[in-house]
């Protein structure tokens, strides 16, 4: 018998994945004005940056741009905050878990909103330069690659694994939950900003781009913290896990039923022993 699956954890995961589904649904089936790339696409041929920025803001209110950014972050980040959120909830009194969660999410969300206030104008400016999509994407991909192999990226990734002691009582508990949200958000922004910027620059296949970026970022978090160096890094562990599962599945199929029955019998006899 395996013990350890708490009801609270199930509820938390259901809420996080529910948020993801709602956000993806809004992006996929919404009016189409929820993500920045779509908004910026018509501006690609413009030359005068100031005028074009004013035009973008006139046609799309800051509120609409912020909403698009919120949807994007809500679609991509909930699975990534599952572990730090579990840390907050596990270390809080049961009656304070909702409050601690709200404060953590507020801190985390605040840093991402600040990041959006910087990344979205950058994306608008890149679009407004009038560069063809391919050169601007290639340039952004180079920035992503340079950041991806840098020691600074590893430092931020390491900070994402930080789990501080949290106060349990009163205002100190509230402060710690909020500050932990802020620091996790800052580490997450530091880790993900380049890939998020690249996602913003895609004017077509946005869902595919966002989905790929989300899987990449999620897989990257499964990697252990390590010393910061210049090196190629990515979701190696996730790739190995998927490859191992695939290999097992294919090996099982190729062995056929006879072998699998023999294996089952040996497992049953081993369990009896």
């Amino acid at each position, binding site marked *: 018998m*395996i013990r350890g699956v708490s*009801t609270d954890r199930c509820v938390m995961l259901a809420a996080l994945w529910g948020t993801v589904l709602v956000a993806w649904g809004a992006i996929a089936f919404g009016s189409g004005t929820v993500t920045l790339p779509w908004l910026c696409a018509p501006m690609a041929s413009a030359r005068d940056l100031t005028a074009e920025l004013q035009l973008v803001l006139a046609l799309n209110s800051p509120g609409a741009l912020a909403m698009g950014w919120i949807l994007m972050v809500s679609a991509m980040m909930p699975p990534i905050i599952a572990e730090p959120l579990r840390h907050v909830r596990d270390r809080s009194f049961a009656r304070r878990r909702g409050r601690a969660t709200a404060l953590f999410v507020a801190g985390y969300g605040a840093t991402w909103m600040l990041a959006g206030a910087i990344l979205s104008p950058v994306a608008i400016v890149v679009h407004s330069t009038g560069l063809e999509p391919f050169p601007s994407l290639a340039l952004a991909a180079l920035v992503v690659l340079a950041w991806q192999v840098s020691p600074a990226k590893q430092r931020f990734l390491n900070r994402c694994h930080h789990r501080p002691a949290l106060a*349990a009582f009163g205002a100190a508990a509230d402060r710690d939950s909020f500050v932990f949200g802020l620091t996790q958000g800052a580490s997450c922004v530091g880790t993900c900003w380049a890939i998020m910027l690249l996602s913003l620059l895609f004017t077509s296949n946005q869902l595919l781009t966002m989905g790929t970026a989300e899987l990449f970022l999620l897989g990257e978090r499964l990697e252990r913290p390590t010393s910061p160096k210049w090196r190629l890094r990515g979701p190696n562990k996730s790739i190995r896990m998927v490859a191992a599962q695939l290999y097992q599945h294919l090996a099982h199929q190729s062995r056929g039923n006879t072998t699998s029955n023999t294996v089952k019998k040996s497992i049953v006899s081993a369990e009896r022993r």
Partner: protein
Amino acid sequence: MVTSRDVELLGANTETVRLVGHEARTTVVLDNTVKGKLTATLRAASERALPDRVFLNLENVRSVNDAAVLNVYINAPEGEDPARHPECKAGSIALFGVRKASLTEGEHAGNGLTFVLEISTIMDRLHLSGALGADQLKVRLVPRNPVSEAAQISIGRISVFREGH
């Protein structure tokens, strides 16, 4: 078979504990509501209805010295050598591996180590003696050998959890 379990925080101390010399002390404040749940299961305990289990967590234990061993005592009488009261001993922890776990750029991201000691028997004894009425537990950390300041031993938080059945 996977079963659900009811685990929740019962109490915690309010400050980081730094261990230097022969002993460090801290107070774990218990939450009245959660303590009420625990005492209810202790009162109703029988062969068929087991009481809650209780655990002492030493969270974010950091140091630059792997060699220390600490004995952990709960509610040991004041002014007396806790070693004379084995009934108060929650357990011993060895800080092997804590130096690497404390490195910010290491595999543990500088979180240190977390130790969990079961203290169900001690809580049961405190309940039977009527001492669980107090809203706090006095925790004493006693190293086998005196610890120098250079070892930089710290415990981020000491907390108590109950696990229901």
